[in-house]
């Protein structure tokens, strides 16, 4: 008997075909039901927190999350946006543009009901085009001067450009008598972007640099460099460094200079808790209080907007580790304001869809005739519902976006407060005087 493979009968083929068709129909139906269910279950609006959460810049993520949690808490306390609560979801850029791009794509693909993004930092040039193309409003505290002429419609900068920071440093140094100073900045992008305008403004106002060094960050020793600076006898050192470099450099300076430090004037980087903790321990509280000052964007600590932020962030002491350290923090304060601004814009637009509410954002903070000044989300929502025009002045103060979506701000001198453990503003500089004519 010859063995052969039996051909399937016509009936069997029909049966298989029917079963396949039914299976496909079931799959499509179940899939649609799941999608509908998912949409129904998306009962919260997601804010993407796009920062480094691991690696050497992990502090950025902690700070961004603190600001986000403060913002959503304040908004959710008033019933959320259009009856929907907000939630923060972190996405780790690892502090590297090469990792930031896939993190951004993952965020866009996976975050349900993504309405806005806060962050990142120096990786922003890599991620802004992506969020802009996705029409998701993106608020960031990036100081890179390349954003001074930003043309991405969905990108908003909440802190001043590093070029303006540089002008502020140079203005302070020359105007307040420190005309024989040293310039010591690390070579990373975040520090170097302040240097050209610092030097230009400082020299323009009569200052002369006694020493001018660029340090490679994170080295095990800077003693040779410290000797060079000591030998130049500066009356101040103008600088921006990461906490580890600053702690090493300044402690070695103390050791080699008979336990003395000149005045150290640095940028808003030194207002951050990781810098304060690291450098204060390395050089001692007394030396830190006496010698380390910062020139940074002004945060008015007495306004209702700031007080609301302060109360909210301190109330998060379980969710945010060491919440007190974020009270005067320039970046977490700005991120908080970004969320409130976006929430008010969504309320005004009656939509949480980025492409719809984006055009309302600049109007929330712009000064206009007949507008009601509001300082909290609660005040803003009440005024909008009453049909009024509003101008939001929040925790960071005035954040009126210019045509490049950057918010120019005043600068102030900060000194260490040993009671609170934070840097407090002691003097505000007149905005117009900072910039060259």
């Amino acid at each position, binding site marked *: 008997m010859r063995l052969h493979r039996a051909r399937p009968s016509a009936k069997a083929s029909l049966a298989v075909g029917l079963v396949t068709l039914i299976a496909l129909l079931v799959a499509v139906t179940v899939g649609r039901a799941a999608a509908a269910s998912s949409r129904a279950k998306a009962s919260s609006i997601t804010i993407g927190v796009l920062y480094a959460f691991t690696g050497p810049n992990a502090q950025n993520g902690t700070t961004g999350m603190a600001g986000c949690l403060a913002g959503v808490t304040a908004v959710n306390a008033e019933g959320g946006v259009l009856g929907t609560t907000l939630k923060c979801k972190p996405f780790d850029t690892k502090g590297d543009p090469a990792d930031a791009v896939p993190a951004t794509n993952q965020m866009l693909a996976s975050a349900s009901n993504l309405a806005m993004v806060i962050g990142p930092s120096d990786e922003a040039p890599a991620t802004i085009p992506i969020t802009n193309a996705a029409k998701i409003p993106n608020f960031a505290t990036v100081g890179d001067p390349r954003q001074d002429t930003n043309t991405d419609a969905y990108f908003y900068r909440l802190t001043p450009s590093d070029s303006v920071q540089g002008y502020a440093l140079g203005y302070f140094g020359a105007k307040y008598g420190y005309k024989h100073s040293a310039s010591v900045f690390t070579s990373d992008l975040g520090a170097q972007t302040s240097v050209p305008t610092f030097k230009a403004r400082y020299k323009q106002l009569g200052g002369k640099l006694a020493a001018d060094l660029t340090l490679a960050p994170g080295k095990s020793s800077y003693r040779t460099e410290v000797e*060079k600076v000591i030998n130049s006898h500066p009356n101040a050192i103008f600088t921006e460094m990461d906490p580890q470099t600053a702690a090493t450099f300044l402690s070695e300076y103390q050791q080699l200079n008979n336990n003395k430090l000149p005045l150290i004037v640095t940028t808003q980087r030194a207002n951050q808790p990781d810098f304060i903790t690291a450098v204060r321990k390395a050089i*001692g509280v007394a030396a830190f209080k006496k010698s380390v000052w910062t020139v940074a964007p002004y945060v008015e600590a007495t306004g209702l907007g700031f007080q609301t932020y302060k109360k909210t962030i301190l109330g998060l002491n379980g969710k945010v580790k060491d919440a007190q350290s974020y009270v005067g923090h320039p970046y977490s304060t700005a991120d908080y304001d970004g969320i409130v601004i976006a929430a008010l814009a969504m309320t005004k637009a009656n939509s949480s869809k980025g492409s719809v509410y984006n055009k309302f954002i600049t109007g929330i903070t712009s000064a206009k005739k007949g507008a009601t000044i509001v300082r909290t989300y609660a005040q803003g929502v009440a005024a909008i519902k009453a049909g009024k025009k509003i101008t939001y002045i929040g925790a960071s103060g005035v954040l009126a976006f210019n045509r490049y979506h950057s918010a120019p701000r005043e600068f102030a001198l900060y000194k260490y407060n040993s009671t609170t453990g934070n840097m407090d503003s002691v003097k505000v500089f007149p905005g117009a005087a900072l910039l060259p004519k």
Partner: protein
Amino acid sequence: MNQITLAIGFGLVTSSILALSAVGFTLQFGVTNIFNLAFGDVMTASAFVAYLVNVKLHESIWLALVAGGLAGGVLSVLINRLIYTPFLRRGTALFTMVMVSLAVATIVQNVIQAGVGSNFYGYEPVHETSLHVAGMLLTPRQFAIIGIAVASMTGLHLLLKHTRLGKAMRATSADASLARSCGIECDRITTAAWMLSGTLCGLAGVVLVMNLATFDATTGNSFLLVIVAAAVFGTVGKPYGAMVGAVVIGISSELAAIVSPSLKDVAAFSVLVIVLIVRPNGLTLNFRIRRPVEVTAA
């Protein structure tokens, strides 16, 4: 004060830290042929153990140094036994082992960061006056760091030259199969080598942080490149070569900083490149291409 003499003094401190770490790194490669990229992160872990002893338990920094060294040794042995050895038993290729060590490095760093967060830490501060010695300007603690490095290198030399363990290590490093045939228990020698090199790693992590004033979860990893450079300079696998590499790279980078701080790394790696052009296998003459060490089942 003469800037060159000062820079040499500062360079000796850097060289001391580098010597401890580069010798530990090269010892691991010499005995087991593993290019261990997790070395820097084990330094960080050891530094945190020392932090616990010094700051949380309020013990002296010298006791913390011992604790850190032991922690580095134990952690290194565990990593080798639990992760590297199983891969080697399967005959994993050298390049793949490098990738495995990179994965271990990432895991260790992220576990540390998950535990301690993104904050910066430091040992109990000690405010010392610098001492002028032979034109150099160093604190007592920096002299102690140099002393620790010299003592460790001397101890290592005596161990390798004059003890059975040292001879067994050198034999295993030279030819593991032959050493096994001669009755040397290579697995035990390998464990001893990892304990020794891991202890050096731990000591290096603690003295690095003593010198830095502050550290975080990524500090050790950022130092790895210059450690590898010092090891490669003196031929990977040769402890004496690594010692020479550490001194040359440490001092040359401080001397270059006199001209410009930006030249520190340029000088260090330029010296390395020049040596490799003249001697492609590093400074030491007798270098052989190695295969991964065969690992027998226990």
